[in-house]
């Protein structure tokens, strides 16, 4: 004859629950202790100083790239303006009236003071609206036969990027996309359609002046221009 199962002693159950709670608090305390130890160690290390310096340098680099981009835009605008004015001037000088009429010369000077026309839109695909950044700035003098553009981008309409390419005077160079950019995701938050927004594209840079167009294809859509700029390539220094 077996003994009837005994009811658990409520005092024992209460003590066991209390013990479990104490163990939990003690473990939480240890986890907190590790974090405090890490924080203290981190603040006191040379590594921390280097990380702060690195963050400052990255910020400065980004500001420099932005400045360089603005300067390139200004240069392009001025180049377009100069071309338009030279064309106008040539036309005026070729006319008989130029030789005969001082008032027309005055008119030519007045035309030269007019606001410059906007720079012509780059030929090729339509422009899209992207959030992007280029780790290797394209705003530079290119030396050497090839260049690799690295960066990240996503369309602001939330679609996924399915391909990237660079076009140099219309010649396309396919790139690789889907590269991890953990710091970007940490800064901008999760990008469900583009969880790995990084890309890299290598293109050829023959000597001369060219139009570079960085383009992406979003799912179900045509190629869209992320950005475009004039580039100047020079022979590699020997």
């Amino acid at each position, binding site marked *: 004859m077996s003994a009837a199962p005994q009811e658990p002693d409520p005092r024992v159950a209460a003590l066991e629950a209390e013990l*479990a709670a104490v*163990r*939990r608090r003690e*473990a*939480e305390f*240890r*986890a907190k*202790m*590790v*974090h405090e*130890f*890490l924080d203290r*160690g981190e603040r006191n*290390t040379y*590594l921390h100083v280097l990380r702060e310096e690195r963050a400052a340098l990255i910020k400065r680099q980004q500001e420099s790239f932005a400045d360089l981009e603005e300067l390139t835009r200004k240069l392009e605008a001025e180049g377009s303006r100069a071309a338009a004015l030279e064309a106008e001037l040539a036309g005026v000088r070729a006319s008989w009236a130029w030789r005969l009429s001082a008032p027309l010369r005055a008119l030519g000077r007045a035309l030269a003071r007019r606001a410059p026309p906007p720079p012509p839109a780059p030929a090729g695909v339509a422009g899209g609206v992207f959030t992007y950044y280029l780790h290797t700035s394209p705003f530079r003098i290119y030396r050497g036969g090839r260049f690799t553009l690295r960066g990240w981008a996503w369309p602001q309409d939330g679609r996924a990027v399915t391909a990237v390419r660079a076009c140099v005077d219309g010649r396309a160079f396919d790139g690789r996309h889907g*590269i*991890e950019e*953990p*710091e970007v*995701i*940490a800064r901008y938050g*999760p990008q469900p359609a583009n969880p*790995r927004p990084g890309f890299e594209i290598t293109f050829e840079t023959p000597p001369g002046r060219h139009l570079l167009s960085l383009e992406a294809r979003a799912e179900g859509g045509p190629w869209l221009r992320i950005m475009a700029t004039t580039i100047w390539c020079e022979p590699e220094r020997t």
Partner: protein
Amino acid sequence: MSADAQARWQAAASSLGERSAYKRVWDLQARDPDVASLSVAGHTDEATLELTARGFIDTLRSLVGVGPDDVVLEIGCGIARVGRPLSAECLHWFGADISAGMLGHAAARLRDRPNTTLVELATVGLQEFPRDAFDLVYCTVVFMHLFEWDRYRYVEESFRVLRPGGRCYFDNFTLDSAHGWNVFMEGARYPLERRPAHLSMSSSREELGVYLRKAGFADVRVVDLPNELIAATGRKPD
């Protein structure tokens, strides 16, 4: 696993002479997410990563136990293959790795796991962590990439950071398994001057057992696992 990733992995290899330069060797492996995954796990797809991690957690649970109140440290966590699922089963998971690049990939995979912390190790050892802090310290598929002295360094450091009563787990492959011999022969086939720094090297049962006993662990056991690895476990005496 793509042939492309394999080729990039090979291209990222450093020479065996640099094996001790763990930070440099593994940061090089971590530059590309697929190469990072390949080099620490042998595959690149998320489903396989999850599957193998689950298998390891089952092993860990059966050999040393995993509890909801455990504060856990993984040495050489890489891309947090194990940490991601294990964090759901413990109070707090700490992942330590010598490669900041690997930790960058880990951070991206742990974004939705608030009870996780990643720590970059300055060098071999666990000097970033306080003593008597963890309930469980483990290190899986890492020892094959370390020299013997560094393996022991991690074992004795684990003893320091474990709380009294805390458990440890270390594994490696052996020469007397089919898998182990294949790995050995793959290494043997490299030309002398092209042996990569991350080349896998085996442990013996005796070696792992000696490390744990010399470090002060009690209840030391070395067991053969179904996946042809051997695992050494121990407990820090109360």
